[in-house]
């Protein structure tokens, strides 16, 4: 059952993932080529807003689209009813979906780090600057954006009669973009805050799924 659900979710998430991958590759190629044109900038592009903001936007878009694909598309296709008629029960289906979504997000993190490292390697050769410094903005974004995914999922799962939940992604974006990455000692605070906020969102999702009609 787990493998069947995983396969389905991965296939459904493949298109937005590949689009995001292509966009990120383009951004990195552009950043590296720009850096090479300005020798005094070499190696600094990962800390440059021209890379960080596109990466943040791509990550946010991917997170929102993933949440919507996993939840809203089931509503649109009418397939919640189908999949919930299976013996697994809605709790297990929801857990599997979230596990798949978070697994895909981890893959995205891996891809983002690998592409960034590849960009650095192409530019500077085998002796890059310390990785912690270089990957700092990438990691900040990867740690903070999952709440946006969860918020988008909850928004699509939740019917419109509770308007606040419709704003969850906006709250998530706000928290990620303006607060979490810029906190002091972010490597401790941001993961904890993300985990806490994520846990609240997941609890809300289970509450919503237990009380809503899948008509």
């Amino acid at each position, binding site marked *: 059952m787990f493998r069947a659900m995983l396969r389905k979710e991965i296939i459904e998430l493949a298109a937005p993932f590949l689009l995001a991958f292509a966009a990120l590759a383009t951004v990195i190629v552009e950043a590296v080529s720009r850096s090479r044109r300005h020798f005094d900038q070499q190696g600094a592009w990962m800390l440059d807003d021209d890379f960080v903001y596109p990466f943040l936007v791509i990550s946010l878009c991917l997170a929102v689209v993933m949440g919507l694909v996993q939840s809203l598309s089931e509503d649109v296709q009418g397939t919640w009813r189908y999949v*919930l*008629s299976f*013996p697994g029960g809605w709790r297990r289906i929801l857990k599997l979906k979230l596990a798949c979504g978070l697994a895909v997000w981890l893959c995205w993190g891996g891809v983002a780090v690998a592409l960034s490292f590849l960009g650095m390697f192409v530019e500077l050769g085998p002796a890059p600057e310390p990785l912690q410094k270089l990957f700092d903005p990438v990691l900040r974004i990867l740690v903070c954006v999952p709440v946006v995914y969860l918020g988008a999922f909850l928004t699509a799962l939740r019917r419109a009669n509770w308007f606040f939940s419709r704003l969850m992604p906006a709250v998530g974006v706000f928290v990620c973009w303006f607060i979490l990455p810029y906190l002091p000692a972010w490597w401790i605070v941001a993961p904890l805050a993300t985990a806490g906020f994520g846990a609240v969102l997941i609890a809300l999702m289970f509450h919503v799924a237990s009380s809503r009609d899948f*008509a």
Partner: protein
Amino acid sequence: MDPVNESANAGTTDAAAEQGRAVQEAGPERVSGQQPVVTDRLTKYYGGSRVVNGLNLTIEEGSVYALLGRNGAGKSTTIKMLMGLVHPDFGSATVLGEDAHNMTPETRAQISWVGEGHPLYRWMTIDGAIRFAKPFYPVWHDDLVEQVIEHFKLPRKRRLYRLSNGQRAQVSLALAVASDPKLLILDDPTIGLDTVVRRDFLESMIQIIQQEGRTILFSSHILSDVDRVADHIGIMLDGVLRVDAPTERFRDALRKVVVELPAPLPKPPDCPGLTSWAQTGNRLELVFVDFNEIHQSYVDSLTPTTQDVLELNLEDAFVEYTRGARGIMPSFVREVAHV
């Protein structure tokens, strides 16, 4: 609103309730046994509208029960509540002995559902849809799926969005029978299918029905289908189960009396057992439940110049029962006036 229609409709709503009770009460006693589906005052509101109203439904094991009603009568909502997809606002639904909303996976594995419009993942191929559904069930009969796929000559490698509605219905049926369910619930499975495909689908369903002990609940608009396969029918009107009876009993209970009157009536007098009436000029059609001497005397009291008592097939009986009073439609009034 046309005052004739308004008063007539108000009168026949109560009459319909009476007749429904009459049909239910007059039906032969069910053989007591296991009851896969039992609902107790099941009620559901959407907005301020009560779409299912105090539904008490019992379906015996091994029976083929057709849930009928016009659009918006509450059939699909009832089925979704039985599947645990929709929460009732009041009352309860018990399916295979468990509360519909808290069924264990073991119980749910004994139920198959074919949803209205056949909601499947349309990007999947037929083979992919089978591979996806199979791991969810503890019991899965590849041979049964194979039989249905072969019978309908379905292209296994084709994606579902490229199939016709009829083929998607056939895939749904194949997936539904594969787990060898004790209870098969089908929500308007033949809607949108042409006559030939519908007939094929029903033939297959009949074969499935022949398996001992299997209970089937299905909703439908197509009365000829129901007549072929269902041994019991339930008719819902405005969320209320008005009829719950063996199919033959319902069909035989209704009679239409067509009379020619010397002059049109503003509204026929009330009469117990009068379900609906329609008038065109001097011609009056009256539909009675359990037509008897009292009804005959009532008809005679109208002093008709001619009268015919007609038997109805299931479709006509359903239409007459659910349509209510029509009175005189405005276009007919003009027509009559020109004549």
